[in-house]
């Protein structure tokens, strides 16, 4: 069936089998293989993309459900050739090795910083009434839906902490 998707600000018209997941639409039909298939089951997080600013597992949703949604993939995180602060920090802190989970980690982290900035609690948040600082434990908990088998978790946490602490970030850690 005909579907029009808004991916990274561009409108993309696709003719899809109704069973096509958003992930397979991106990888097999839209030419965007940055989003990765690690399990096709919502278990690993490698396929994480942002839909209307929220992070989701793109393998667990059908493409036809996203006709009017704004979809952001790893290919949409940089502005031209300028990497986002998270992308830069992942490189300098070696927040990846093989790189296969990295697109999902980056989309997840981008959305996660926004969630934290809005004051959304996590499973390890002790105080639901007052703003909680984004500790290493908070970052780790909020990123635990993204598996990294190379096990670069310490570098991932450092990279996110650095990006979160960077001033004048549009993710708005101070907002």
């Amino acid at each position, binding site marked *: 069936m005909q579907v029009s998707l808004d991916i990274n600000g561009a409108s993309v018209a696709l003719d899809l089998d109704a069973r096509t997941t958003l992930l397979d639409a991106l990888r097999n039909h839209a030419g965007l*293989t940055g989003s990765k298939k690690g399990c096709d089951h919502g278990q*690993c997080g490698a396929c994480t993309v942002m839909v209307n600013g929220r992070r989701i597992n793109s393998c667990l949703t059908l493409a036809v459900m996203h006709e009017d949604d704004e979809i952001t*993939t790893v290919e949409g995180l940089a502005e031209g050739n300028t990497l986002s602060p998270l992308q830069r920090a992942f490189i300098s802190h070696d927040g*990846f090795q093989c790189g296969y989970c990295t697109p999902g980690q980056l989309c997840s982290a981008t959305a996660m910083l926004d969630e934290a900035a809005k004051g959304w609690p996590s499973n390890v948040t002790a105080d639901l009434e007052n703003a909680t600082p984004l500790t290493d434990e908070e970052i780790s908990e909020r990123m635990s839906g993204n598996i990294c*088998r*190379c096990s670069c*978790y310490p570098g991932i*946490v450092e990279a996110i902490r650095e990006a979160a602490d960077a001033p004048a970030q549009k993710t708005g850690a101070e907002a």
Partner: protein
Amino acid sequence: MTNELTLDKKADTRRLDEMAQGLLGTPMDRPEGVLKVTGKAIYADEERPSNLAYGYLVRATGPIGRIVSTNKDEIAKMPGVVAVIEEADLPRNSVQGATPTAAPTRGDRIDYIGQPLALVVADGFEEARHAAQAMTAVMEADTGLHFDPEAPGASIETPEAKQASQGDLDAAMASAAFTLDEEYHTSSMHSAAMEPHATIAEWKDGKLTMRGAYQMLKFNQKSVSDALDLDLSQIRLLSPFVGGGFGSKLGIAPEAIAAALASKAVGRPVSVAMHRRQVFETTTHRSATKQKVRLAADKDGKLIGVGHDNLVYNLPGEKFSEPTTQATPFTYAGENRVIGHHIARLHRPAAGSVRAPGEAVGATVFEMAMDEMAEKLDLDPIEFRVRNIPDLDPSKGIPFSENRMEAVLRDGAERFGWKHTKPKQRLEDGWWIGTGVAAAVRVNMMSETSARVRLTQDGAVVETDMTDIGTGTYAILTQVAGELLGLPANRVETRLGDSDFPKAFGSGGSVGASSSGTAVYLACMELRQNIAAALGVEETDLTLKDGRAISGNVAKPLTEIVPGEGWSATGTVKGGKAGSLVRQATWGSCFAEVAVNAVTGETRVRRMLGSFAAGRILNEKTAKSQCIGGMTWGLGMALHEELVHDPRDGHMVNRDLAEYHVPANLDVPQIEAHLLMEDRDDWANPVQAKGIGELGISGTGAAVINAIYNACGVRIRSLPGTLDKILAELP
């Protein structure tokens, strides 16, 4: 030009320490990093040639036995289906590592549940998957099969070449002041690399191109050649980026041959990406082990006897068996020694190499036993280990190339703030807190490897079929070439993962960095000779830095020295007598602080720190990441990872990432890895570097288990140390 070296003796110079570029060893960012963070690195299943068809493997659901018939004809009529590849020469399972032949084939049999029965090819992925899931077979079940290594009647092999004995261990055990005789178990484990195995196969003019997730192209190309009866010249493999391997991609997996067969049958490029559950079942996993450790020590804590016996398993017809005791013959002293190795033949999915085959489970269990023995002796476990560092390899009587065990134990202890304490001393807020230590040890190997370096006026290009599976190959080969040729990293381009390039051993066995690094070194030394000759000076008098050649009063940019067409040199290194004249190994220590919940028995690792020595470190950042990754695998082995096999039919019960638990972010503290940066091993190769990719898992999990004992007094002898095993014995 070629420059060949067989490693028959100790290197007599450390030329890399004389270089001026200052690039090697630095924590340089990965040169391919930008591609990886922008989604532009192209992995196995990501090229999309026109007219691409999709294949989906059909899973045999059992029973095990002879295939009588299938509903292939019905499946072929389903919407979108182009072909059903149901052939006797479909591979049964992955090829074992460093094996230049094809895998056993399906024939008319299913040997384990989950084996590929067929491949369905369709225009669309969804159509292929749907049809594949509808395919069934009528089977004639075998009887008398075994699924559990310890079940009565299981067929157990005890190959003579894999047993060893010296002195009289029984007598030593009888006379020793202190002894330990315990049985340990480790679970089956899976590599579970993030990228599922995949291949896109395409035939053009009689030539087959396969873009896939492969670790060792030289061997993989030969396996394809053997499976499909093709000349090597007809096969091109491309693996520029591999989404993790950890042993599971050493040998090609069943999807590769299936894709090639399908592409030929349908005359179109075919993509076959295995589902995560198919990866678990059809690629090789680490066998569970049963290990018996015997230790005998005199009253001063000197070991006089060491016994290490183990039982592992594999499918009939598989040559590999987990070399559990690989490091036991040389790690600790003791004149009376026995090694035993037994293999059960089971109809479970095939076992094979997983990161640090042997030491990962063997050294880990041995380090658990060493902790128990230290307690019997009332010794600090570090002191006990140090007292038993042998002067010579106690089994072969040959010297060590270097032994850094004490150095890494002392370094780690100081950084961690190690204090030897009695168990059950700290109960804080409902958690028992404890610390543990373990040593890590992994054999070091070299294998024949070539690389080509082209030097032009623009810079240097390194080419080899070596892969980067996350290990940092792009970074380190860039650094070796840049250091020797006096070029900044941005003037060196490293191209990997193309079988048309000079052949490397590949990524496996911690062989890659040292072997490929040496091949690049040899090629660059040849190019340095060219530069020196052009300047009319001796190569040893040449300083190359930032694209300039300096010798005495002469300084010239390389652009004025290198001819327009450039120079090309190929370096080839071969393993030689240096591998048998001395014992070569890498050394590590690991320290952990854990909290065990006093009510539930749940263990959380609060701190983990390691210190490692592996000769020259080529990139401090990527080497540390390898160690941190390995230590996390140790943590996973200690606490989480357990493949469960159904004792009734051998099938893998928890064959996905929801049920097979690998460490997630919150399971892992901010692990620290420290490297002995000044270490050099002259016996290893002229780069003085050894492998580091597997050292981090080779014993470190024991630090967690030993810390659990220190915290709450519960000895775990069966991994993983899940809460059910702790709960019953909690104080």
